[in-house]
């Protein structure tokens, strides 16, 4: 099976490389960009690149009040176009997955993005929301190139990604953990030293697997990891508990083990070109936190008890 995956991996390497090249190009272009941004945002641009002061959980832009489509804004452009284009996952159970029963992409992430579309267009018609299923490694390049307006894809806000993208405030608190088969004797990632552990290419889990001296096996989708685990080709899968819960829900013969390895705060990714959209999305998220919709989505997709709602912290 590993031999079969090689072409994917080769492709992954190419895509990662091209992603990095894109990132580098954008970084090179960055010095010239702050002037093109709105004044309020320029102040943050000075402080954000400094890695030492970076706090992924408090890096977003403060909303100016309730969500409003101001004339000339990116939201107005989207409204004129008629639909919002969102890059989403289609294979992560409970967050973004293609439901074979109705052919629709559904999940917690999709609820968040649907709320954003509803706020822009004033009605919940699905015609106003185009969901574009993308892979993990396409998230960054697609946001940067403007292929999608926003990404809702179990995407962790990280200092590295903040160099290239803007994120909304944290809408979900996840933690990296480990999923193994029920008969596994491993109790944490440290017990899997020298064994194969699966993660998706371009996820930040890959580096942590390598750091724990396990052998990372990168694939395209999280469900591909579950295929490998079921076929006995990897000993474990390591990523955010939110994703692992979705995999465990598809195979009752698996279990989550070990303490949280790292915090994985999820945010909606938006291009650095549209700070007003970041503020708008944060305003929508703030509404969801307070009007009970966030808790309702959590209850529907993830279950009870409902976790504490992640509170928004802003940098500017």
């Amino acid at each position, binding site marked *: *099976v590993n*031999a*079969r*995956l090689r*072409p*994917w991996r080769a*492709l992954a390497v190419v895509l990662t490389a091209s992603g990095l090249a894109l990132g580098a190009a954008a970084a090179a272009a960055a010095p010239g960009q702050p002037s093109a941004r709105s004044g309020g945002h320029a102040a943050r641009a000075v402080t954000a690149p400094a890695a030492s002061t970076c706090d992924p959980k408090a890096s977003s832009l403060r909303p100016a009040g309730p969500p409003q489509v101001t004339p000339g804004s990116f939201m107005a452009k989207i409204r004129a176009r008629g*639909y919002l*284009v969102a*890059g989403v996952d*289609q*294979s*992560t*159970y409970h967050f973004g*997955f*293609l*439901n*074979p*029963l109705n*052919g629709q992409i559904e999940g917690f992430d999709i609820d968040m993005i649907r709320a954003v579309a509803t706020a822009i267009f004033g009605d919940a018609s699905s015609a106003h929301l*185009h*969901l*574009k*299923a*993308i*892979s993990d490694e*396409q998230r960054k390049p*697609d946001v940067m190139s403007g*292929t999608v307006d926003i990404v809702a894809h179990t995407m962790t806000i990280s200092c590295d990604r903040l160099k290239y993208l803007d994120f909304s405030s944290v809408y979900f608190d996840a933690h990296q953990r480990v999923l193994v088969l029920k008969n596994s004797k491993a109790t944490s990632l440290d017990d899997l030293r020298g064994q194969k552990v699966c993660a998706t290419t371009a996820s930040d889990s890959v580096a942590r697997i390598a750091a724990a001296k396990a052998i990372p096996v990168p694939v*395209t*989708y999280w*469900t*591909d990891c*579950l*295929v490998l685990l079921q076929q006995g080709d990897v000993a474990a899968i390591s990523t955010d508990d939110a994703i692992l819960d979705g*995999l465990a829900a*598809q*195979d009752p013969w698996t279990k989550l083990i070990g303490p949280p390895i790292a915090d994985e705060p999820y945010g909606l990714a938006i291009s650095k070109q549209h700070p007003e959209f970041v503020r708008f999305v944060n305003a929508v998220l703030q509404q969801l936190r307070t009007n009970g919709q966030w808790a309702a989505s959590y209850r529907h997709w993830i279950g009870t008890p409902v976790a504490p709602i992640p509170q928004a912290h802003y940098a500017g």
Partner: protein
Amino acid sequence: MTTSVDVSSGPVTTAPVVRRAWWRSRLEGATTPARLRLLLALLILLSLAWGVLAALTANQHASAAADVVAVSEPLSLDAEQIYTSLSDANATAASAFLAGGLEPAADRQRYQADITKAAIRIEAASALVGSSAARTELPGHLKNQASAAGSAVGDDLAMLSGQLPAYTDEVGTARADNRLGLPLGAAYLRAASALLRGTLLPAASDIYTRESALLTSASAQATGLPLIVIAVVAGLGLGYVLYRSSRWLSRHTHRVVNYGLLLAALAGLVSLVWLAGAFVAGRGDLLHAQQQGSGPAQAFARAEVAALQAHADESLTLIDNTGDDDYQKDYVKLQKLLGPGPGTLLAATGSSQAASQAQAWYRAHQALRAQDDAGNHPGAVAAAQTGDAARSFARLSTTLSEGKETHQAVFAASARNGRDAFTGLAVGMIVASLVMVTGCIWGLNRRLAEYR
């Protein structure tokens, strides 16, 4: 020519010829009965030599032609069928998966039929390679080539029969998960498709390539000229010797016709005409089989497989449904390969109907992609399953598969005719040479008796 004149006229003179061979002086000094006995021995030897040469030639062509019909053709046909069935199974499984939990009964049956067909063909090919009795008679280099190909083909077939259950297992799991509404199903389908394309199809393609090469070699051997030319020249030479012998006899014995030698000459003539005639007829049939049969059939088969893979890509793009578009890139690649246009697979088939049907499908595919890219995934899925794209692909697929089958039938009929042209030829050559020997003995013994 001059030497024969010397021998037959045989003037017993004392002319001082210095460079005379020892046997010639012996012959000239010999009595007529001794000369007759020598001639008889020579004729028997030549007749037997002719018999051996002609039978060998006949056997070479017959076994090469038999190999074309009995081993190479069935094996390459099996390999082609394995390849096509697997490609069709993959395309059908993907298309059925798109329908969700309630997959269409027709798709399910088609998938099952494809898998069954592939399994039967793998088994048949394995049996053929395992026995490969027909190949033991193959001449020289062809035999070496066949045994080398045989072991490689054996490995490929072992791989196929080992991995086919793994493939159907993954498709089955994909189907079960899909039925439960789990996204895991799509992952299993992708894994199955990767296994099929990465392992099973290359093995089938390898068998096909090797067997096609062998088919070409065997066909070339059956229709090749060198040996038959040598045989015909030898036959004509033997006829000339018989003619000179009877002239010499009639001069020395004052009888116009020696019936024994006449019989030998007739037997020689019949065997020569039969050999040459069988060769011309067999060669014609085998060349026809190649040019009007296996050649075009191969072209259609290649186009069909490329179309099937592109169709699987169309479905997998919709199942995968990410902007990742590996499958769509592959579709575009296959579209370029398929044509129509100079140097493409469709151009090789020469079918204008297939060309226009392919273009209709590309247009429908483009419309489908535009729909999907605009966010209308359900609409695109409907187009791929029952809409324009599905119908235009079905038309193209039917044209290509019918074209292939028509030419395969032409090949089978012509190749069989070609093989049959050589039937009994080797035995006939041996019988003829024995008749010639008998004729010579009978004819010359009657003259010899006159000296007793």
